[in-house]
């Protein structure tokens, strides 16, 4: 800093000093934290102070979401009975009452009556399984690399959701069906509840193409009533130009720009007093401050060139097939390392329901897709582990629903909300365990059933947050919105 800066704006410096920080914006942002959501605040209610409610086990989350619906029976939940009864109608098998199971009704919130279709002709498994690792958990042959990490993974085989259309993509992130409107996503709750780990980066980053507008669009990483400042910030994984407009304007010097940013912040502070209820303005002020710091921070984070050859190979950056998703996983790790709190990574956007949506040609489709992500995801887990980061980083592998035990057409599976699998690793989650189970054909989640918000609750729990305490006045949350932590998989 140049010496003659000292006389610069005493008034403003006074303001800075009050906040005890180097840059106005940061202080202002901190001052504004959380207030936006409840102007008509009830007595006694206070916005989160950014501190966990209890001692956390994890600091951050990397959330991998496969768009379209991964087949649970061909990935993490082996069902040999499907081979045995392949081609038979459900009604001719010992499982004939499965579609009459009260769980069918129990599962549904019935936003749309009669929408749920059950494919009756059982379809054999399209891939083999092997026992893996010390734990001997069975994982399908489409996951040779992730299988090597199975002893760090807790597989949850008893997920259910209420919908079998792709609105469930947003639902997996908010807990509410798309028809019920927009609600805060898990990433935005984390952002809202916890303070920053690095003031120079967005705390909630989105990598990869988000889900299509059909199925939630930007709302699948939005913050709804928490206010736009808690929503995810999309960043391109493009090391040569990771952030548009991040280079100084023509002829502008660094100090000059900083000086301008400070003046903008000062004006913002004055405006805030005038429009205390303007949530969009509040968000804009914060994003403005963040923008200033991101200009240098983001290109730093995206410098893949700093990674050695071994690491690059670990993520599959040397292969055409694995490179795109490998770069995202690597970027996710670098972000996590730099202090981003929640990285939401999407895979499989195709301008519609999603690439994993295997209505036909399941075998070919899933083979290709698994190949694209298996190596990178395993690379991420291994890399986090070797850096000691897996201890306080939760990695989630998720999708909106599973696929029917029965066949759709000749070689596909339909949507299946009654039972499916996700997995978690790291951040105090037990490794090499399985929680919950579906029935013999993977139809219903029958043991330790978990609605999607149980995953949210588990994450919040590990981060030291109590979802209930985050509730905003006037925005009542139901039990099902909050979910329950899956204690069985918590170490």
């Amino acid at each position, binding site marked *: 800093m140049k010496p003659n800066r000292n006389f*610069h704006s005493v008034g403003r410096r006074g303001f800075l000093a009050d906040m005890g920080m180097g840059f106005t914006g940061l202080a202002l942002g901190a001052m504004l934290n959380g207030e936006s959501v409840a102007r008509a605040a009830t007595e006694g209610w206070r916005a989160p102070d950014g501190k966990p409610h209890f001692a956390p086990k994890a600091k951050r989350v990397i959330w991998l979401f496969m768009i379209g619906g991964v087949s649970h029976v061909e990935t993490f939940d082996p069902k040999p009975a499907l081979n045995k009864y392949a081609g038979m109608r459900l009604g001719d098998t010992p499982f004939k009452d499965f579609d009459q199971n009260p769980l069918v009704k129990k599962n549904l919130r019935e936003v749309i009556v*009669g929408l749920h279709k059950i494919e009756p002709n059982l379809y054999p498994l399209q891939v083999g399984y092997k026992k893996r690792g010390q734990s001997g958990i069975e994982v399908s042959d489409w996951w040779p690399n992730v299988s090597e990490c199975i002893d760090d993974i807790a597989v949850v085989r008893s997920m259910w959701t209420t919908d079998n259309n792709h609105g469930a993509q947003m639902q997996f992130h908010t807990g509410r069906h798309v028809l019920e409107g927009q609600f805060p996503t898990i990433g935005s709750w984390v952002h809202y509840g916890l303070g920053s780990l690095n003031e120079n980066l967005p705390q909630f980053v989105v990598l990869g193409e988000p889900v299509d507008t059909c199925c939630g669009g*930007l709302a699948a990483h939005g913050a709804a009533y928490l206010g736009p400042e808690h929503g995810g910030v999309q960043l391109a994984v493009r090391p040569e130009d990771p952030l548009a407009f991040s280079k100084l304007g023509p*002829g502008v010097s660094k100090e000059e720009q900083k000086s301008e940013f400070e003046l903008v912040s000062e004006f913002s502070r004055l405006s805030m007093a005038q429009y205390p209820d*303007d949530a969009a*303005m509040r968000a804009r002020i914060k994003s403005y401050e963040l*923008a200033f710091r991101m200009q240098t921070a983001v290109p730093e984070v995206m410098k893949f060139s700093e990674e050695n050859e071994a690491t690059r190979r670990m993520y599959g950056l040397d292969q055409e097939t694995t490179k795109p998703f490998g770069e995202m996983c690597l970027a996710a790790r670098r972000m996590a390392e730099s202090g981003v709190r929640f990285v939401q990574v999407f895979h499989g956007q195709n301008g519609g329901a999603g690439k994993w949506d295997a209505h036909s040609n399941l075998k070919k489709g899933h083979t290709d897709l698994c190949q694209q992500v298996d190596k990178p995801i395993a690379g991420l887990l291994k890399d986090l582990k070797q850096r000691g980061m897996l201890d306080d980083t939760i990695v989630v592998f998720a999708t909106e629903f599973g696929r029917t035990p029965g066949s759709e057409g000749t070689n596909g599976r339909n949507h299946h909300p009654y039972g499916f699998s996700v997995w978690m690793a790291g951040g105090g989650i037990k490794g090499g365990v399985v929680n919950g189970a579906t029935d013999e054909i993977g139809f219903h989640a029958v043991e330790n059933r978990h609605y999607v918000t149980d995953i949210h609750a588990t994450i919040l729990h590990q981060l030291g947050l109590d979802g209930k305490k985050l509730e905003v006045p006037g925005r009542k949350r139901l039990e099902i919105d909050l979910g329950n932590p899956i204690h069985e998989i918590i170490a």
Partner: protein
Amino acid sequence: MLRRLALLASVAMCCLAQQPRALSILQQRCIPCHSGPSKKSGLDLSSRELAIQGGDRGPAIVPGKAKESLAYRVASHSEKPHMPLQSPKLSEADLTVLAEWIDQGAEYGAAAKAVASADAPLPLPNHWSFRKPQRPAVPVVATVERVRNPIDAFVAAEREKRKLTAVGPAVPRMLLRRVYLDLVGVPPTKEEMDKFLADPSPNAYEAVVDRLLADSRYGERWGRHWMDIWRYSDWYGWRKGNDVRNSQRFMWRWRDWIVESLNRDKSYDRMILEMLAADEVAPQDTDAMRATGFLARNYSKYDRDGWMQDAVDHTALGMLGITVKCARCHDHKFDPIAQEEYYRFRAFFEPYDVRVDRVPGEVDITKDGLSRVFDVDVQRPTYLYVRGDIQQPDKAKVLTPSVPRLFGFPLGSIEQVTVPLDSYYPDHRSFVQKDLLAKAKADVEQAQADLAKKEEQYATVGKDVAKLSVAEGYEKMRVASDELALAKKTLAAAKENVVALGARVAADNARFASPPDAAYENFATEARTAERKAGILKADEDVTRAQMELDKALRATPTDEKMVGEAQKRLTAASASLTQATDGYHTVGTVYENKSSGRRTALARWIGSPDNPLTARVAMNHIWLRHFGKPLVPTVFDFGLNGKPPTNPALLDWLATEFVRSGWSMKAMHRLMVTSATYRMQSSAGTENNSNAAADPDNEYLWRMNPRRMEAEVVRDSILSLSGELDLTMGGPDIDETKGLESNRRSIYFRHSPDTQMEFLKTFDGANPVECYLRSESVVPQQALALANSQISVEKARVLAAKIGISAAPEAFVKSAFETILGRLPSAEEQAVGVRFLQREPDLLASWQVPGPPAARAREDFVHVLLNHNDFVTIR
């Protein structure tokens, strides 16, 4: 209908008092979903036995016990799910009828069979948007002081119901800025602001509104809105290969039609008609023809089915506010649209195709032209695709066009149209003939010039040959000689082409004269001969060229096998054309069918009919959204059963009927909306209105105006406009999207497609060209960076600073900059902060060795800061 009559007749004979009414209620409100093969919840209510047997939830009717009957419990909302699903509750009177009927034993009587028929067409739910809006009476409200026109009365009525208190009006400065940005998409200049503030007339504001609506910038501003809804896209595909795979070239003509139509306040029903069927209703009007870009935009080179799907889906979404897409594979889950109805709707579009007609001055239709639609085959059949699978058309039944029954009002008759000569044979227009002949003559001149050059070259080589080795000399002479021979052939062919073209034009003129010229046969023979001769010469030229290319490829070291192959292919083709037989002459251009199915005209007239329950409502909702920041029906493209109901149904219906009454005049409706007291409210909640914020935090009932962020185009255009450098040239070809920060044209004129979008616009949530019925309004750091660092904001800030007065004293400069950029005066604090900046910054700038005079630079930076101010992008 017969079935219905039979039902009523048989029921009338019955003795039980409530039976006919009860069955009629069941038939209308329950049986549509609870019967037939896809009965909901496994429940079939079409017969007494089935109703008692019940569905997945158990018996629906317990005869004699209404209160214990599930059907009654869900219908009376004493148990969930409330029925009819997502439809208005049954009236109390109807519920009483049902209860009494069940209590009396729930007899179906002789009607049972009639009701039970599973193949009965889907009866229609009594959904609000499927019924024609009835003009509601303007409510009488208590808060009359908040009412300037009927809009305000409707809004006030809802507010009063909820005990909400409207905030006060916006201050004049804020209001003027709001209405400028809203109607013309750029802020008022300081002079315009001052003039408005000084105008003592009580109608000063209305005068401004009228002036802005008459301003041609209005068409550009609102044109962009409609381009969102009508999903404008320039062509995309493989730009490098000039390969149009989606949309069409020259879509900008459609964009210009939109802008011009809005500026002329063309009626909305006429706009619909021209977009869907200008080729049928105005076949000779090339200006109107541009409108068919709406359909041409759906073109998809490799996917005719996807093309048809887009035409169907987006006509329905954009103009009718219904989602028909689901019914492509199965009966619609939410709305009463059968799969067959989807395909019957598609049949309107089935015959159409796209083509490019020539425009004066350019014969190459890849360089300029008019992209338009036409019926390529009026007989092209439409089949239902089983489960939406194009491999499985149900060929047993050719589907004729019709509209979904849910609308409850019929399509007019479909009349085949005979299109005029200019339209079915566009190259017969005299300007095309003239342009083609001129081009042919220009080709001769070109060939002559080329020949002269080759002759000179040959002569030069001849002189130089002595200086070369024999081998080299031979090679050079050979090449020069070949090229000379080719140039001679080219010239000969070009000359003969002029003759042939002239003869073909003459033959065309004789053939298409009305009545046909008696000497046509002679002309035709002459044309054939001339064409044959020209063809031979052209083929001779081609063979020579191909031979030369082959030679070259063969002589290359190492031999380029690929080039040899290609050259050989060309040689073979050229030689073949020499020996091909021809009969007759070729018309100068393509002659298309002289008739059109008339289907799209019928559809357009049906959509644009005052009786259509949705068209006016959907359009009003779109316009309302863009004036007030929030739509009345939140699901702007879905007014069906799965959509959300309007927040103010009476207001929407009044607007819809008023729109029709005004002759579908958009300007009339804009005027009503922006002159309403509702529009003039302040957007700030104020401090005294906490009860409003508690009762209606999302401002659904408009107790204040919604503050908004400028749309992407407005951000860019406003910066340019403030700097005084906005280029107001209207219309013309799309400008390269990468030139957005250098060119000063309005944002609407830049190339916009899924593959090509200006980064700056994209950053501010610019329209998604695939589908954009509602723009998102995100807040992300990238937006701040775009304003802070982009060339446009930095450079225009400097220009603007100079405009404000680079040498003005700090006090005056700060005040003037606030007024100019933010449209308001600075507060005392802001003024002080600003002045301090201008006083101190110059020394700092000097110490940082920033170039230029520091005092001026500080002022430029100050202007740049105000462009980055939250109040700049905010429309309060």
